[in-house]
């Protein structure tokens, strides 16, 4: 604010550095410990350096189904991401105009963010249990081989969407608040149909931000526990599996698992950022033509 670096700057800077250390310190510790030697334990000192615990993890290492949980989480995350991007984009477009119930939808989305996850999860579990009960009470051709409607891509997907969609909607608000509507108007003046102006003007412009929505959707789903806990059915996702393991596994394998899931998160972030950078570069190359197809 004022000339020169004040004492306050150095104090606050020091505080910030401590905060960053506080954020990263523990993560670095488990990253290091996941390369613990075969004889090593859960804490320091390191007993040699090896990839032993990763290979044990890869073999399954006596942990039930960890690989399957990994793939389930990945599949669910991708579906959640896709649905979140499409539904959020549509809703974002809708909010640029007036429609009945827009205030209600907005407040419901906010409510979905702040109602404790376990309450939502319980509600979804109850809903699907009632669906089960209804189907089982139905005629034979319906109830014959039926076990439950609870599952990864029914109740699980629903639970995750109640968490990712509000974020998606809020990001769309942020996007369209910055959007220059004159570009669209120009497209219309040049005779573009609404679809053409969306496809060739709006979409290319918001695409980098949509990757942001996708990134948010995926990571929220990938790490989600509380909402999944009651609504996922019999097949656990990776974070749920991980939570269960915290009480049973007493070897550095759990750190190896931690390092692996963190690695996946980072790969996803890297892909997303790379995508955004490529799109930005493309836009810059093509100047104001806004992504001619």
């Amino acid at each position, binding site marked *: 604010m004022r000339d020169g670096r004040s004492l306050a700057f150095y104090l606050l800077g020091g505080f910030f550095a401590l905060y960053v250390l506080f954020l990263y310190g523990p993560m670095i510790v*488990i990253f290091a410990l996941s390369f613990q030697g075969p004889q090593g334990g859960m804490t320091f000192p390191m007993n040699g350096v090896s990839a032993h615990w990763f290979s044990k993890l890869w073999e399954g290492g006596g942990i039930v189904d960890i690989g399957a949980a990994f793939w389930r989480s990945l599949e669910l995350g991708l579906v959640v991401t896709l649905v979140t991007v499409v539904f959020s984009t549509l809703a974002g477009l809708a909010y640029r105009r007036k429609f009945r119930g827009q205030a209600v939808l907005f407040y419901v989305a906010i409510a979905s963010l702040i109602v404790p996850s376990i309450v939502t999860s319980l509600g979804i579990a109850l809903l699907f249990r009632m669906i089960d009960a209804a189907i089982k009470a139905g005629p034979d051709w319906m109830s014959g081989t039926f076990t439950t409607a609870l599952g990864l891509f029914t109740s699980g997907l629903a639970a995750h969407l109640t968490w990712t969609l509000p974020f998606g909607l809020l990001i769309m608000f942020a996007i369209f608040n910055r959007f220059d509507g004159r570009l669209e108007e120009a497209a219309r003046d040049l005779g573009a149909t609404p*679809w053409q102006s969306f496809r060739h003007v709006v979409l290319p412009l918001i695409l980098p931000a949509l990757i942001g929505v996708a990134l948010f959707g995926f990571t929220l789903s990938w790490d989600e526990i509380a909402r999944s806990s009651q609504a996922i059915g019999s097949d656990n996702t990776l974070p749920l599996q991980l939570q269960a393991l915290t009480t049973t596994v007493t070897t550095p394998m759990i750190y190896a698992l931690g390092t692996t899931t963190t690695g996946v998160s980072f790969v996803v972030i890297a892909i997303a950022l790379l995508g955004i950078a490529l799109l930005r570069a493309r836009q810059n190359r093509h100047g104001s033509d806004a992504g001619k197809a």
Partner: protein
Amino acid sequence: MSDIARPTDAGHIPAAGHIPAAGLASAAGAAPAATALAATDAATMPRAARPRGRHGWAPPAWLQAMPMGLVFALFFVLPLALVVVVSFWDYNDYEILPSFTLRSYTETFEGCYDQLPGLCTIFKTYVTTAELCFAVWAITLVIGFTISYFLAFHVRSLTMQIVLALLCTIPFWTSNVIRMISWIPLLGRNGLVNQALTQAGVVDAPLEWLLYSRFSVILAFVHLFTFFMVIPIFNSMVRIDKRLIEAAYDAGATGWQTLWNVVVPLCKPGIVIGSIFVVTIVMGDFVTVGVMGGQQIASAGKIIETRLNALQFPPAAANAVILLAATLLIITALTKVVDIRKEL
């Protein structure tokens, strides 16, 4: 429906968007520039928002909003209603019995009246949860405010602001459980902290309260969720007109006076939004309390989880309703401090 769309909501449609966009623009990776642009672009919105092209068909807005609306109606509003309904139903060891009873509530509050002035289990649990909540809120607020203040007022270039903000964001993308268990090698009985303390001769025996205690639960919460405080407060701060601070300085205010009388009031919306996030997370949490408390600490969220593990749905639902009421009460109190809609 439209009577809920209050005309006082400050005018045109994007107004609805301003509230969250303000809070989360930076979360989307769209840094302060977004908020600066938002104000000017809003003026051009109504024109662009006109749907009709000269030819071709544009789907009506309500149809575009429908998929999201349906998801919320079916998987959020309806389930919430079911939770309330089921909390008034009866149950036995095997199933839910759809007949009205207050059993789940009377059982939950059993003995509460008789034990007065002593506290019954449910009240004790809520006191514990409230204490956790308050501690986490106070700590995250102080840290969040300080970090935001540093970023907003002491870091001068926009690039540096974004880089430092991203630095705080990265851990947020990794699993919460991983971030929790990463404290174990540090705080455990033979962890780094205890090793250091015993070697330095500060303590004779390793400290037991470092892990699986209230301390570790609060530490984990602060570690996980300070981020939710930083973003909205930072977002409020970068919008403060720097000339106001110059003016306060010129008028002879000390640094603290400026902070307390100018910066803090102008940050109130951010503080309230951040507080709502943190409070609701801690109130409903059962994962962090479970993992970091060694499954020994009771909290409002854990009661529900315990009931659910026993497949007792009506009592779980009753506890969910109580939790919801408690959370809404706190949020209402927080929003009384500041009218969010007005201030944004």
